[in-house]
């Protein structure tokens, strides 16, 4: 296409050669839209006017404004960079030291009190591979694609209904460990993504027969009933089809768990494709077979209100959840401890130290930082 652009530029400026003209003429004949484009360009009688407006724009002023704007931030960034460099040197020395001594209990590389809880952050991947990092952005509306705009704010991302209908494009939100992110799809469906999760979805549903998205990790869905199309979540080979609903899907391991808060959903998997309908307050565990039980939904969804609720949970499972949220490694020294069960509730904004203290008091286990890991031992 750039070659055609070149030929048209040459044609307009009357600098085209005979053979090039031939090539361009063939292209024009190919399609009526090509002919229309050429007509439009050739009949633009205000070429010089357009050029003069162009020439009058002060590029340098705009460039300096931009540089002033980013310099402030670059300076802040440098301070952090040097601090980070210092930290890396320190840890390099520490690890070099332990490389030679092979200590079984390496010195702690951080203090428990320093471990920060997760926060709002994610990466948005557009259809064409373009990536944006999302955080607690200032509120603004941006165009992310040909015809799609989103509102970005500290509350997350909201897709606005598309201005024009085009082929369906897909975006992906990737939430890293230590992150969480909220978004609202173009149909109004609200989704709250937990740490280490990924969601792929169409930017608009207008061209699709159903509203289908793909999930890995954990997310809480509040599906907009403002559409006649079914909302479908695919997690691995499990399909969750909703009929106006609020539900949570936890698919960190091979057996996704789906909890229905209200409304009605159908769950099926690839094995037999048979759909099982859930009632509100039911949990479906999708292993080889789908097993449905009645549960109290609170512990499954309280993370969306900023709390961890553990009811008779294995320490091993709790450690997995904490590792994702605090982005740390936790090692449980022996099997007996891993099988201990805990019940309790704690805010997600608390430091990990707070939670670890609670665990060690409750079951008389020892929590230490060993190297780059948190170790739980007898």
């Amino acid at each position, binding site marked *: *296409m750039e*070659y055609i652009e070149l030929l048209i530029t040459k044609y307009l*400026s009357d600098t085209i050669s005979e053979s090039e003209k031939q090539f361009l003429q063939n292209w024009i004949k190919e399609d009526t839209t090509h002919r229309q*484009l050429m007509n439009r360009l050739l009949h633009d009688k205000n070429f010089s006017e357009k050029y003069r407006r162009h020439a009058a724009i002060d590029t340098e002023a*705009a460039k300096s404004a931009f540089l002033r704007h980013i310099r402030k931030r670059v300076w802040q960034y440098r301070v952090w960079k040097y601090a980070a460099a210092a930290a890396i040197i320190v840890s390099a020395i520490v690890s070099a030291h332990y490389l030679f001594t092979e200590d079984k209990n390496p010195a702690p590389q951080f203090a428990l009190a320093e471990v920060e809880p997760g926060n709002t952050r994610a990466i948005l991947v557009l259809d064409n591979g373009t990536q944006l990092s999302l955080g607690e952005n200032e509120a*603004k509306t*941006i*165009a992310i694609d040909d015809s*799609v705009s989103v509102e970005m704010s500290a509350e997350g991302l909201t897709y606005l209904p598309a201005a024009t209908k085009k082929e369906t494009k897909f975006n992906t939100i990737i939430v890293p460990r230590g992150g969480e992110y909220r978004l609202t799809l173009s149909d109004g469906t609200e989704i709250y993504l937990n740490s280490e999760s990924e969601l792929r979805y169409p930017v608009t549903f207008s061209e699709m027969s159903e509203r289908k998205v793909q999930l890995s990790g954990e997310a809480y869905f509040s599906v907009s009933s403002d559409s006649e199309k079914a909302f479908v979540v695919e997690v691995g080979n499990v399909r969750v089809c909703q009929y106006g609903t609020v539900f949570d899907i936890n698919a960190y391991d091979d057996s996704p768990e789906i909890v229905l808060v209200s409304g009605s959903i159908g769950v099926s998997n690839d094995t037999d494709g048979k759909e099982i309908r859930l009632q509100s307050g039911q949990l479906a565990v999708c292993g080889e077979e789908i097993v449905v039980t009645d549960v109290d939904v609170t512990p499954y969804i309280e993370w969306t209100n900023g709390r961890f609720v553990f009811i008779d949970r294995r320490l091993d499972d709790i450690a997995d959840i904490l590792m994702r949220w605090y982005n740390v490694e936790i090692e449980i020294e022996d099997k007996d401890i891993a099988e201990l069960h805990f019940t309790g509730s704690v805010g997600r904004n608390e430091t990990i130290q707070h939670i670890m203290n609670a665990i060690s008091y409750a079951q008389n286990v020892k929590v230490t930082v060993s190297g780059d890991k948190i170790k739980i031992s007898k």
Partner: protein
Amino acid sequence: MDNETFIQGINRRDTEAYKQIYDRYYRILVVYAENFLGNNGTSEDIVQDIIVNIWEAKMTFVSYNAFKTYLYNSVRNGALNYLKHQGVAEKYLEHLAQTYSPIDESEVNEEEIYRRLFAIIDRLPTRCREIFLLCMDGKKNSEIATELHLSIETVKTQKKRAMAYIREHLDKSYLWLLFIVTENMMLSDLLIDC
């Protein structure tokens, strides 16, 4: 800076590459926004916002083409959104959205044609440029001569100079492209021979 280096620079958030966005695209994007908004300063704000946002969101692009498409379409959507917030009639918005349809990577981009041509015209000597612009407006040599108080001969010579300069620089800027295209043509010729 070639296109590949330029995009890598953007992806690394290199200031030099960001300065190049201004040198290469700022003016044409503002002109493009003015199609929607007229000439009242808002266009410059919209373009500035888009570039600042690329920086702040640490955006990365897979190719130069993806980057160009992103710029033009962001300006288009930004301008349409602005008008919507101003309470502009739905019908007029639809009309604008149709007249200036979203730019597709695989289609010919009119604004890019203007951009390249304008960049070369910028470098022409003043008189040469004046004559060439009037000529592009569809004026005859005699009309240009009268308007600028010049002889027809001078107009002809200056026009030739302008065209020679433009041809040379267009070919230069597309050299790699010509090479690729001719290579493909040769291959297809060979295939026909076989």
